[in-house]
C-alpha cells in the first residue's frame, strides 16, 4: 500500500494496543508513483508526532523511513536498527494501560 494511504488510525491502533513501536516505510521523496503520496505521509507523520506527545507516547516509537519495495537489504537493516532502539526504550507503558 502507498505510504500516502497510511491513515493515522493504522499507527494509533497498535500503539494503543501496546505495541512497542510502529515503522512506516515509504518510497523515497521524488520517487512517488502517485507524485505526492510520500509527501502527504511526511506531513501526517509530523502532525502525528505532535499529537502523540500529548497522549503520553514517546514519539521515538514511531519511525518513518524511506525504503522502497525493492530495497530488501535496507528494510532488514532498518528493522534491526529499530528493534535495538526499542529494546533500549523498553516495553511500551501502554501495555499496562487498559482504560483507553
Amino acid at each position: 500500500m502507498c505510504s500516502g494511504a497510511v491513515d493515522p488510525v493504522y499507527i494509533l491502533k497498535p500503539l494503543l494496543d501496546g505495541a512497542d513501536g510502529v515503522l512506516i516505510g515509504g518510497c523515497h521523496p521524488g520517487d512517488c508513483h502517485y507524485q505526492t503520496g510520500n509527501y502527504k505521509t511526511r506531513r501526517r507523520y509530523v502532525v502525528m508526532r505532535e499529537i502523540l506527545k500529548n497522549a503520553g507516547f514517546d514519539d521515538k516509537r514511531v519511525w518513518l523511513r524511506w525504503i522502497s519495495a525493492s530495497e530488501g537489504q535496507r528494510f532488514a537493516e532498518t528493522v534491526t536498527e529499530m528493534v535495538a532502539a526499542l529494546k533500549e526504550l523498553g516495553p511500551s507503558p501502554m501495555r499496562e494501560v487498559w482504560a483507553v
Partner: protein
Amino acid sequence: MNTILPVENNDVLPALRSFLKRLMNSGVIEVLLVPLEHGEGVMPALVTDPALLDSANPLMPLMSINNARAVSAITGKHTPAKIGVVLRPCEIRALIELVKLQQASLENLTIISMDCPGTYEIPDSMAKGTWKQASNLSAYLDAAKEGKEPDIDGLSLRQACQMCIHPVPENLDIHIHLFGVDVRRGLPVTMKDEIAAVLNLTEGEAGGGESVPFGHDISEAVARLMAGRQKVREEALGHIHQKMTSNDSIASLFASCIRCHNCMTACPICYCKTCLFKTAAFDHEPEYYLNAAHRKGATRMLGDTLLFHLTRLNHMGASCVSCGMCTSACPSDIPVGMIFSAVGEQVQRVFDYVPARM
C-alpha cells in the same frame, strides 16, 4: 464602503430584516441562508421567499449547528444560484477551511456577517425562556457596544465563545457592526463597493437617523473584549496542557466519553462521507475483547475510545477553528473543543499554519 442603515423606534431587528430583503429584492442574492425564528429559538433555513425574512433573526445568540456545513451542502463544484449566507465569524472560518479541503466553494456566494459577542447553550436559554424577552437582547447589544462580556439572565456564554479571540468576522462581503456602536440609533454596515452600488447606498448614509461613528469606539470596544478573551483562552488551554502532561495524559480527559460520535457529527471540518468510525470496522468478535482483556489484564468497554479521538485530532486538528460545537454537542460535558484547540494550536504552530487564513 461604510454606511449606516436607519433604525426606527430603537428596534434593530426590523432594520436588519429590511436590509436582508433589500439584498434579495435588488438581485444581489436570490436565496439566503439565515436563522429564522422557530418556536422559542432560531433554526437555520435556506430562504427564497422574501416575506419569510420577517422572521429572520441573526441576532438571537443561539447556534444549533456550525453553518459552514450548510454552506458546504449548497455550494460545491457548482453553485446553482446567487446565494447569500448569514454566518458568524467562526462559521466563516470553518467555511474557509472547507473551501481549502474542496468541500465548499465561495463562488456565487455573498457572505454577510456580524460582530459576534458570543452564543449560548441552547438548552440553558430554552429552559429560562431568555430570548422571549426583548430586554435580554437589548442588554446583549449594550454589552457589545461597550465591548464587555454580556451578563444576561444568569447565563454563561458557550465555553468556546468565552475564549473566542475572533469575534470580528473576516473574509466577508457585508459586515454588520455591533461592537462599539449604539445600534439603536443606526446600524453601521461595511460592504463591498459593488454591492453598495447595486443597493444604491452611499457612503455614510443615515437615512434621517443620527450618524454613528466608525473607528475609534469600535476598535476600543474590540480591544477591550479581546484582552479579556485572550486571557481566558490562555488559562483554559494552559489548564488542558497541564492535564495532558500529567501522568494519565490525554486519556483521562476522555474517561467519561460514551463514544456517541456527537463531537464528530457537530464538527464542521469533519467531512468524510463515510467515516471509518461509523463502519463495522470496530465491531469486534467476542474473542477480540477477551484477548484484549487478557493482554492488559482488563480492557475498556466498548473500547477504541481514545483511538477515535486521537484519530480525529490527526485528521482535523490542524484545521480546528475553535468553534466549540463539539463541546456543546457532548452529552458527557467533556471539553472536547478546548482539547482540540490546545492540541490544534500545537500542530498549527509546527507548520506556521493559521486556520481560516486565505
